[in-house]
């Protein structure tokens, strides 16, 4: 297992995709903070627009978005880095980049045929996927760290300051989000293993991270909570630290997805 992790980590380091995704993430995060900065300036100069923002800010957004603004930031308050980081992680930009990485990284082993070199060499083929899961965990952490650092730097450049409200809560928030992102990564590994199709996996991954499953709410026609609160992608968008449900959902789903994926790869012929 250790050997497989070392092998996958080496490939992650050597793959261009790893670095290209990080570069795009830095650009997107800077662009997002810049858009927030311009919007704050706009709302400060347009009180009527700010009123509209206040009334619409209560609406839940399950989709992917960038440059979101909290009304509090437009009322001559300092813009907290905590808020900027939370809004940008909730916007699922990081998740979208993670989806692209997981699809590229995991399916490449199959499409290149490299798996034929190693599938017979390991005592349990499921370890091949478990090792990928560890890499997804490492890369998620790198993505979140890079996003955080970029937002710090962007805030300093654009707003001229870095204002931290509560560092402890911020770290806790990032750790929770990391677990949710890894859980979503396990869903992607499951999809790739099940479908064996790069494009279909990527499409489904992006649609699910963009909240397409809220369509289920329309079919159920229930007044209770949206189904999104019971999904990893939904919890990434609306994470509440006071509730242990998101973590429970993440851990349970991760276990189930990995167990099924490992079962599939152990029992399926390598073609």
């Amino acid at each position, binding site marked *: 297992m250790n*050997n*497989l992790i*070392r*092998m996958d980590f*080496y*490939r992650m380091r*050597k*793959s*261009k995709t790893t670095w290209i995704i990080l570069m795009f993430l830095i650009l997107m995060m800077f662009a997002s903070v810049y858009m927030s900065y311009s919007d704050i300036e706009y709302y400060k100069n347009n009180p009527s627009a700010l009123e509209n923002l206040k009334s619409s800010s209560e609406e839940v957004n399950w989709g992917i978005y960038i440059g979101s603004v909290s009304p509090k930031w437009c009322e001559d308050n300092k813009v907290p880095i905590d808020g900027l980081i939370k809004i940008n992680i909730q916007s699922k930009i990081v998740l979208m980049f993670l989806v692209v990485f997981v699809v590229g990284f995991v399916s*490449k082993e199959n499409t*290149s*045929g*490299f*798996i*034929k*070199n*190693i*599938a*017979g*060499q*390991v*005592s349990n083929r499921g370890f091949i996927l478990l090792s990928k899961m560890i890499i997804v965990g490492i890369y998620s952490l790198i993505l979140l760290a890079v996003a955080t650092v970029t937002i710090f730097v962007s805030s300093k450049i654009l707003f001229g300051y870095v204002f931290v409200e509560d560092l402890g809560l911020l770290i806790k928030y990032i750790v929770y989000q990391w677990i949710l992102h890894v859980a979503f990564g396990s869903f992607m590994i499951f999809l790739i293993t099940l479908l064996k199709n790069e494009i279909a996996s990527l499409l489904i991954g992006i649609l699910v991270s963009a909240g397409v499953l809220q369509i289920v709410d329309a079919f159920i026609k229930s007044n209770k909570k949206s189904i999104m609160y019971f999904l990893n992608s939904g919890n990434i968008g609306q994470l509440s630290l006071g509730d242990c449900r998101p973590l429970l959902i993440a851990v349970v789903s991760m276990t189930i997805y990995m167990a099924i994926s490992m079962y599939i790869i152990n*029992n399926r*012929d*390598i073609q």
Partner: protein
Amino acid sequence: MDYLLSVQNLSKKYSNQFATNNISLNLKKGEIYGLIGKNGAGKTTLLKIISGLVKPSNGDVALFDYSGADRKKVLSRIGTLIEAPGLYSNLTAYDNLKLKCLCLGINDPKYIGSILEIVGLEGESNKKVKQYSLGMKQRLGIAMALVGEPDLLLLDEPINGLDPQGIKDVRDIVLKLNKEYGITMIISSHILDELLKIVDRFGIINDGRLLKEISKAELKEICCNHIEIKIEEPKKAIVVLDKLGFNNYKVIDNHTINIYERLNDSGLISMELYKNDISINSISIESISIEDYFIHLTGGNIDEQSN
């Protein structure tokens, strides 16, 4: 006799079709075994089952006397190059080999260089695989299979699509690995003449069945010589040949029968045909190509295009 590899009644069924059907074969240490068959005959499936990539529907494979679930313990002693080499084209040859070394826990920094030297790619290690020619990719594929110093090497169509120089390079590598390193091998190929230069024993496979196993010496003898009888009444002659116990013969046309066994018995054949009032125009020892012999056995064409 102790065999390095023993395949017993191996079958693999996909939907309603057998990819391999009740195949049994044994391989001695140090032997090079050639698998001949049309595309879709079941060669690749057989190699995949032996290497543990595909699970058989029936039958068993014993490797170093480990069979059943225990075979997993020794699967790492098999090196494979099945179908196209499994390589990351955006990485260098060194990186591809490094990945397999890491997987097997090999940390010797000189190891990759020594493997590349065996396949003659020592000066190309930092080139990306996508810049490699087909022949270089095949050699790198063999290098990948050699990581971990396997006792058994499975090479599926290693010379397919290569130019004459590429074929020679691979042939030299295969012979070197067998003679100098004592590696046992199974090689499948369409290029029969080339296989004849490498292989000790052949297995002819068709529609998932192992039709015949034959040594290189036997094949050479058969392909060099057969009895050709020019005759007016082949139907009557067949009855005589059957009585004489001949099984391996073929009616080529209305006047010709070829017999592929007991080449020293042409006198006996002449005498018996004469006794039965069957007039013979001529009886002689002729030779056929390996390809004709293959077609005779399988009723197909070795060069049919890949499916």
